[in-house]
């Protein structure tokens, strides 16, 4: 995001400032920015939705930026819409990209589960965009330089939400981030009773089963098997998806997989944009047939 921010600031002829709430030691990593504006100290280390929103709003009020970029993460969701409503600055959420055309900022957002893109612009001077993680190269955001650092004091307000504790995820039976072959199952499997179909394929291939969010939310597989935004980021040599449409939140966790083969009934499913090979067929026919082929080839 810093790399993109640099590009946008240069195109608009302005400065790039990085707002850093919490640990000021991180400022040294923000060399792509002209200035790192640090808010708070160790007491701000843990995110709290309203306190952070208020701090960010105060920065935006006083520094009046043309463009505010916020990552569309769990924290960013509370911040971007919160600041938009509080300060009455337009927001374009779920952005994959942004550009400057004739002095206007145009943001490209991804909607409808990745099926459509939208070019949108603000009707006023300021705009907030929330950026989908993985949209830009992280390398483009790195720099050997150090930004100048400015410490800003803001009033701490909890706003009715107080951080209590961080809770680590439960230990996994299988660490899917260490598997070379994953057979990943999604909503298309329809029922917990059909999970053995993909388990058999994974076993034949010598890999493990992972899943998209709905499978885990339904309690059909443990949380530790979830790939995507709020699950694990995986990089297997083979990622074979079964009944996964490829919502942006899922793609976030698997875009660096080596070979991606996808089975889905919908020929327009976004998963086929990231897959190398695609199969639009009934998984209940293809998966058992493939399991047999792999077994008999051994």
């Amino acid at each position, binding site marked *: 995001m810093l790399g993109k921010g640099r590009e946008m600031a240069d195109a608009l002829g302005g400065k790039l400032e990085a707002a850093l709430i919490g640990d000021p030691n991180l400022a040294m990593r923000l060399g792509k920015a002209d200035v790192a504006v640090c808010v708070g100290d160790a007491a701000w280390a*843990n995110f709290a*939705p*309203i306190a952070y929103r208020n701090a960010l709003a105060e920065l935006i009020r006083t520094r009046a930026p043309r463009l505010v970029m916020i990552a569309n*993460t*769990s924290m960013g*969701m*509370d911040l971007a*819409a*919160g600041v*938009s409503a509080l300060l009455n*600055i*337009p*927001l*374009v*959420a*779920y952005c994959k990209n942004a550009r400057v055309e004739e002095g206007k900022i145009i943001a490209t*957002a991804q909607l*409808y589960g*990745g*099926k*459509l*893109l*939208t*070019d*949108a*612009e603000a*009707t006023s001077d300021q705009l907030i965009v929330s950026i989908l993680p993985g949209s830009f190269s992280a390398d483009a955001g790195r720099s050997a330089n150090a930004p100048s650092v400015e410490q800003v004091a803001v009033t701490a307000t909890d706003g*009715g*939400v*107080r*951080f209590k*504790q*961080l809770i*680590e*995820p439960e230990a996994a039976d299988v660490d899917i981030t260490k598997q070379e072959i994953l057979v990943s199952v999604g909503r298309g499997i329809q029922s917990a009773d059909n999970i053995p179909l993909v388990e058999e394929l994974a076993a034949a*291939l*010598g890999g493990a089963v992972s899943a998209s969010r709905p499978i885990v*939310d*339904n*309690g059909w597989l443990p*949380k530790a098997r979830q790939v995507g935004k*709020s699950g694990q980021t995986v990089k297997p040599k083979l990622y074979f998806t079964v009944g996964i*449409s490829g919502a942006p939140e899922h793609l976030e966790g698997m875009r660096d997989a080596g070979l991606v083969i996808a089975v889905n009934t919908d020929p*327009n499913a976004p998963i*086929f*944009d*990231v*897959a*190398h*090979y*695609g199969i*639009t067929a*009934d998984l209940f026919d*293809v998966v058992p*047939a*493939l399991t047999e*082929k*792999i077994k008999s*080839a*051994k």
Partner: protein
Amino acid sequence: MNIIVCMRQVPDLVEELELNDDGTGLNREYLKLGVNEFDDWALEQALLLKEEHGGSVTCLALDTPEVDNTLFTCYAKGADKAIKIEGDFANGMTSHSAAKLFADAIKAMPHDLILTGVQSVEDLDGQVGVLLATNLGIPHVSVVTGVQVNGKVAVVRKEYAGGMLGEFEVDLPAVLGIQAAKQAPRYAPISKVRAMMKEKKIETSASADGATEAGITIRRMFKPESGKRAEMLEGDAEAVASRVAEILKERGLVK
């Protein structure tokens, strides 16, 4: 405890999405709408809290096509009251407008906890729950997967990447953007929904004047260019399976 669940109808992604003539939005004429899936999780969380603590669950929705069916389904699942905000919303609306309509309606209703889905597939201008909370001047937490209520405060769990959770204490009333609940949304049989259509009434609430503008204009909406789309493997299951087995063998992924 008065729990309000804000629900929205969104396009069903299983259907083909068609663009309107000037390419700035969806052609909504034949669009199939269904309840936002995360709103269904919010309703489940509300019903679980009611079972534990008592109180009432009110479902609040905008008067969009198919909404009556959604609200009668809420009754069938155990909601105490269903209200639709009247108005002409057939052309869809921004999150900022939806949040304003919900906020105006909620101001006139008793509320301790407001739940809604963490996001929807058409939140171009942000997530409704956060906008709604800010409109009402009350706290919000998004991406919530667990809620407990202790008197005037709720203890909620917010999900981060990698399955990490943050636990927060939240003063009520508050708005929570629900990602998931402890159990999957309950199922309401069609027969029960039909019975509710005879037995229950959907209340209406007039929408207040002055829709909020989101402050953005859409230049164009378009399908992603599929530059490097997958190579599609054709044929029956047997043929496709053979081809996949070959590909895996070529790449040394099966021995």
